[in-house]
């Protein structure tokens, strides 16, 4: 088992380094001169004073070659230092520390909701295969899946807050268990639920035709016991994987929900750093999101054989 985990990690590292290099190179060559960007918003014309600019550049070590700077940046990143913001006088670490927990809360709560409602709905659909409920649930899932969150969120906002006045206008973030959180969480869990429903449905349908389920039926077990105790176990493995993917999508898709509902999370930080051309903050956000997603992928890879004994047996056999 430890060997398997190490192998997985070893496979991830070159990919991660390559991605970092790619992102850094794009920012380095594309984004423009960071020193000039730093002073463009300051009073006075420092930004056009070439001599002073060169002095500052030398002082900050920005005139060295790309690879040297990249190496230094990687070294710092692995120590957990993301550098300083170009626009605000704060470290990027600080900015992310104050925003990321909010995004994490939303993503966790939404992923929980997705599992809570998605799995039962998928089971219901599978048990009524090709029946009315199945068609309804599948149709609704496809419908919901095709609408992006930046369309659902505004429409629901207009409908519920303006036309029916059921909910107060959500703005800002005060925690998961407040009225303000209802709409963002609903919108966030809306689309991914379709994925989980479909996955659960196909899983349950394929499992129901297996021999051991027939045995359970022949033994006279109730439908509920058969589904929950026997059919669900092998289905849950791919569903858990799917939930991991859903979670990483929620983190990177937080941009839309946070912009629309004014939630001070990492997505909004990203948006504001795009607007302000604050590339070091943007880079920090990108790296943190990437790190989380890589971590999730790694965890999925590692727990997959733990959840599914068949895979574990296969590994033993391969040895």
């Amino acid at each position, binding site marked *: 088992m430890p060997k398997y985990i190490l192998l997985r990690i070893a496979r991830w590292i070159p*990919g991660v380094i*390559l*991605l970092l290099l790619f*992102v850094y190179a*794009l*920012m380095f*060559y*594309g*984004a*423009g001169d960071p020193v000039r960007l730093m002073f463009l918003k300051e009073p006075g014309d420092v930004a056009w004073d070439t001599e002073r600019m060169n002095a500052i550049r030398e002082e900050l070590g920005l005139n060295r070659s790309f690879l040297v700077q990249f190496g230094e940046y990687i070294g710092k990143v692995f120590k957990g230092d993301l550098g300083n913001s170009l626009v605000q006088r704060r470290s990027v670490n600080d900015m992310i520390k104050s925003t990321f927990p909010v995004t994490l809360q939303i993503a966790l709560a939404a992923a929980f909701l997705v599992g809570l409602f998605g799995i039962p709905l998928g089971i219901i659909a599978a048990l009524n295969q090709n029946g009315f409920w199945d068609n309804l649930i599948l*149709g609704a899932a*496809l*419908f919901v*899946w*095709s*609408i*992006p969150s*930046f*369309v*659902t969120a*505004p*429409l629901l*906002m*207009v409908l519920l807050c*303006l036309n029916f006045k059921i909910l107060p*206008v959500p703005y800002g973030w005060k925690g998961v268990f407040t009225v303000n959180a209802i709409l963002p969480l609903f919108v966030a869990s809306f689309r991914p639920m379709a994925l989980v429903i479909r996955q659960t449905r196909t899983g349950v349908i394929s499992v129901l035709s297996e021999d051991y389920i027939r045995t359970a039926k022949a033994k006279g077990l109730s439908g509920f016991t058969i589904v929950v105790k026997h059919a669900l176990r092998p289905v849950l493995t791919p569903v858990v994987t799917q939930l991991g993917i859903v979670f*990483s*999508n929620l983190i*990177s*898709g937080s*941009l*839309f929900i946070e*912009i*629309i509902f004014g939630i001070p999370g990492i997505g909004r930080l*990203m*948006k504001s750093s*795009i*607007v302000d051309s604050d*590339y070091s903050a*943007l880079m920090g956000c*990108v790296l943190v*999101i*990437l790190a989380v*997603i890589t971590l999730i*992928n790694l965890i999925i890879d590692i727990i997959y054989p733990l959840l599914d004994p068949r895979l574990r047996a296969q590994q033993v056999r391969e040895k």
Partner: protein
Amino acid sequence: MTLNTEMQMPPTQINPLEEDTNTKPFSIWQDSFGRMMKNKLVVISLVLIIILLFMAIFGPYITPYDYLAQDLTKRNESPSAMHWLGTDQLGRDVFSRVIYGARTASLVSLLVVFLSSLIGLVVGSIAGYVGGKVDFVLMWITDLIMAFPYLILGVVISVSLRPPLTEWMEDRFLATGNPIFRQTSFVDVFIVIIVITSTAWPPYARLVRSQVMMVRGQNYVTAARALGLSQMKIVRKYIIPNSIGPVIVQMSAGLGSAMLTESALSFLGIGIRPPIPSWGNMIQDGLLVWRTAPHLLVAPAVVLGLMTVAFSFLGDGLNDALNPKQWK
């Protein structure tokens, strides 16, 4: 029984059960089309998409107002007989702008699907046909891009492409004096297409690769090789035509998702930017005044929602019609 010689159909793909029926002979494509037309949702989606294309081509000539014409005396007006969907912050007609948005959306998504399926076809068929180390490296890159969240990649590419491109355009303008280089919308469309294409091609490559690997072992390919046909010719004449079916399904889904990504980028302010209307940037603009003028938000959101739903139902219908393995 008509053999579709143009598509180089291998005889095995034709349903032998149809041979002794008395009905008129029909090809596998007609058969698929007939099956697709039985699904009402698919027909509705198809109609919506045809309307979209019509709007994209002829829209700007039939709208009552110019999409840029401002009338500051009529700002944020609600829908009325004169302005069917009301007016926006600058008094522009929202209906005309939504219709012009169809042009932006279709232009971008058609080009993206064309480019990304082309790249996918090339990469996938090379990886699948050549195999070995080439296959390993190409698929590693493909997987890496697929594992990367497309939105984050999009943000990074678009943010870093814009400054150098804008600079280059300005240089060209100063050098040539040609006003075409002052058109910022060209840069926008170019960047959006590059961004979406670079994240959209991996699924095509994977799909084509698996298809090619399946077709590669068929007897007619071995026969072609035995006849001494060149590698290029085998790939072009036998492998690609026989593996294209699922790619068509993917292309239909790709149109919808490219449209969605374009709006998403425009919504974030890094795609198509005002004054050129895109549904995404209209939603973003509408968000500023949604409490007083909700129609600014609702109009583009509903149209975008309808279009993405239409593409996804069409993709689903195409999948049912074209993938014979799922027939039950």
